[in-house]
């Protein structure tokens, strides 16, 4: 029973890996040379600010001259595309190169999300870190990627701590759950809007540090943070907060390491690999690294002299 289930999972995972590998290998290894002219768009923070064209006959491939940035929201990046579709150049179906800019961002975000959750699975079930929710660290990490600065992390931290204080203050009102969480959301929106207005105060021109943070997730995190503090003490809740932010930062690191989003967007079939990883982790029944700490008292003590093998009477 049990073994057949594991075999089924492993077989499904292997099939997924085989399919995604097969799709990768079946792809044209090298795109045929484009002989026409190229259009290079200069982007600042994802917005087009200028266009140059490269005439026919340059020796080097312009795509090597203007490498793609790690994130679509990078300070400066380039968008290189053929000026006109040339004959004989096939555009693969699964390619983001012919998508409009906005959709390109969405596809990149969508493809990174499962990879981010895989990382969260790894940290929760193999390492044993306790985070607030499954998707909070993944979504937070991807939000950090968009702001691309430590300020984003600090803003999240400030919102969480301020929200937690507000939640404590709200507690004496004895509000029902749904209106209470809605009110918390309003308060967080208020804080964010105030922050954005003061950040872009008239006179100064600063780069944006706020993306559309997963507000709902943030609200949920505050609620969990507060209830954990009530139930298990401040130490436990702060430990969970720190591990949530730690995992979020690792997700952020993963998603800004250029080969990762690069590979995922050019090879969307790799999603199969990610799914295989998730399936396999779903059947991981080994220990968690944090359990070494949990059972340390027992490991340090000698085995008990009384052999406790017999079960109760009867």
């Amino acid at each position, binding site marked *: 029973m*049990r073994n057949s289930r594991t075999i089924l999972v492993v077989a499904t995972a292997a099939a997924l890996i085989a399919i995604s590998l097969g799709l990768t290998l079946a792809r044209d290894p090298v795109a045929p040379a484009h002989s026409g002219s190229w259009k290079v768009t200069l982007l600042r923070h994802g917005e087009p600010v200028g266009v140059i064209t490269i005439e026919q006959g340059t020796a080097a491939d312009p795509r090597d001259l203007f490498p793609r940035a790690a994130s679509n929201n990078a300070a400066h990046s380039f968008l290189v595309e053929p000026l006109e579709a040339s004959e004989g150049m096939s555009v693969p179906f699964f390619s983001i190169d012919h998508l409009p800019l906005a959709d390109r961002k969405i596809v990149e975000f969508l493809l990174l999300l499962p990879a981010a959750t895989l990382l969260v699975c790894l940290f929760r079930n193999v390492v044993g870190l306790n985070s607030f929710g499954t998707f909070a660290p993944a979504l937070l990490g991807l939000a950090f990627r968009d702001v691309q600065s430590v300020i984003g992390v600090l803003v999240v931290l400030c919102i969480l701590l301020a929200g937690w204080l507000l939640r404590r203050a709200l507690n004496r009102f*004895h509000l029902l*759950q749904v209106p209470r969480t809605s009110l918390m959301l309003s308060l967080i929106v208020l804080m964010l809007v105030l922050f954005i207005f003061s950040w872009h105060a008239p006179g100064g021109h600063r780069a944006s540090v706020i993306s559309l943070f997963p507000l709902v997730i943030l609200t949920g995190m505050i609620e969990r943070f507060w209830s954990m503090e009530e139930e298990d003490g401040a130490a436990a809740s702060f430990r969970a907060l720190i591990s949530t932010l730690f995992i979020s930062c690792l997700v952020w690191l993963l998603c800004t390491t250029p080969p990762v989003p690069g590979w995922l967007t050019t090879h969307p079939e790799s999603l199969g690999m990610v799914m295989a990883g998730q399936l396999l982790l779903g059947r991981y029944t080994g220990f968690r690294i944090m359990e070494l700490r949990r059972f340390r008292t027992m490991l340090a003590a000698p085995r008990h002299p*009384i052999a406790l093998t017999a079960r109760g009477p009867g």
Partner: protein
Amino acid sequence: MRWLAGFDLLFRRGILGINRRNARCILEHNPRAVFPVVDDKLLMTQLCERVGIPTPAILGVIGRNAELHWLERALRFRDSLVIKPARGSGGRGILILAGRDGDSYLKANGRLIDCDGIRQHSADILSGMYSIGGQPDRVIVQERVELHPAFNGISPRGIPDVRLVLYRFELAMAMLRLPTLESNGRANLHQGGIGVGIDLCSGRTHCALYRDGYVERHPDTGETLVNRMVPRWGEIIELARKAARAVGLGFVGIDVVIDEENGPMLLEANARPGLAIQIVNNQGLLEKIEEIDQDQAARR
């Protein structure tokens, strides 16, 4: 790679990890449909009544704020009782009134609480402050169990309970949970209670865990904790088996209190029993589980 050696050590001690507990014990043996019954103490009590398992008597249930005035009338005739949420977990929200001092009541931690305080606490329970998932809840007013003389001197300001873990309806491990002054009369380990391992065959205690270390004596009273007999051990095991079969959970934690007069009574059942009982007993659950699996395979 040091943790790989550590994993091997955990495995050789037969320790059941949380991943294996979830996949092999809970997912495989605990039907999801049963969870609401064990999560709600009222439903569990009704089930116990049907199958004839003794539980501490419920004096009343309060479901609405408008019914809170009933409490005052109930309190007039009682010196000690327990007020708890129907859907609480981990011992939270349980208010133990141990005695009376004029118009006020003595809490388990020795502090006084007046009628208004009790009302406020009950209103908090109703609003769902202590319930699983924060849903609105009901207040259970329950009779307080009388301390069994066997626990005199090792159970300051509270009633100990016995936690039994059953796998496929067979007893796998057991511990006695003792309150300390620090744990405010509650016996939960992470709130500062003491866990005392019980030898399943004899019902004799064999080692005790307090905080992060093994102890021989109660930290508050200095009384010895090991080599004590748990009273009415055979009855406790029978009750736990009966309860596990009645709820239909193949991996379950059963909490039993021992009343001086009425003997063992079921306090609650837990569909996701914690793993700290292994540290308390200095023994892994995995070997027990495999032993029971082999037994049941052989019986078929």
